[in-house]
C-alpha cells in the first residue's frame, strides 16, 4: 500500500462534471498518515477547510484518489487586515498493493481530517476450477 502516484504540486483545477468552478484555486498535496493493521489500511489526510460535500474519493483499478475543495471563505463587509490562509483544492493519489474490499471502505471527515478505512480483501477467495474431460 501507499505507493504514491505522482501528482503535480500545483495546477489549474479542471471543471468537474458535478459543477463548475467559479475560480481556480491553488492545488495542494494534503499531508497523509497511512498505517495498516492485520485487517485494515488506514489513511488520514489533512484537508482543513473542506466540508463533507467538498470531498471526492475515487477508486480506479488500484489507484485511490482523494480530492477536497475548501468551502468558500468570503467575509462580505470585512476588510482584510492580514492573510496567510487561502481556500485551496487538495488532491492526492496512492496505489494500493493489497487487495482492498472496495465495498466496505469507510470514509469520515472530522475537524478537517479525512479518515479512510480500507478493509483488506479476504485472500481465501481462491476458486477451484473444475476440469472437464474433453
Amino acid at each position: 500500500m501507499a505507493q504514491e502516484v505522482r501528482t503535480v504540486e500545483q495546477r489549474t483545477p479542471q471543471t468537474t462534471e458535478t459543477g463548475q468552478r467559479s475560480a481556480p484555486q491553488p492545488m495542494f498535496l494534503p499531508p497523509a498518515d497511512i498505517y495498516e493493521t492485520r485487517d485494515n489500511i488506514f489513511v488520514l489526510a489533512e484537508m482543513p477547510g473542506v466540508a463533507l460535500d467538498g470531498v471526492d474519493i475515487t477508486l480506479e483499478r488500484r489507484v485511490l484518489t482523494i480530492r477536497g475543495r475548501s468551502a468558500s471563505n468570503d467575509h462580505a463587509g470585512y476588510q482584510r487586515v492580514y492573510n496567510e490562509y487561502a481556500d485551496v483544492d487538495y488532491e492526492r493519489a496512492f496505489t494500493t498493493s493489497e487487495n482492498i474490499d472496495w465495498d466496505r471502505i469507510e470514509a469520515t471527515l472530522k475537524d478537517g481530517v479525512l479518515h479512510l478505512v480500507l478493509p483488506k480483501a479476504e485472500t481465501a477467495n481462491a476458486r477451484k476450477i473444475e476440469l472437464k474431460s474433453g
Partner: protein
Amino acid sequence: MTLEGARRPVQQQDVNWQRRERAYGTFSRAVQLPFRVDPDRVQARFNNGILEI
C-alpha cells in the same frame, strides 16, 4: 491574542506505518490585534479544522 492547541496522535497498537507526514504535538501562536477588543463579545467557531475568531 494567543491561541494554543494540541494534536494528539492516533493511539493504535500493532500497526505497521506506511507513511507518516502529519505533525503532532502542541502549538501556540500569538497575534497582535490592531485595535482594542471587547473580550465579552468575542466569538469563536471551529469548522472543518479551521478556527475562526
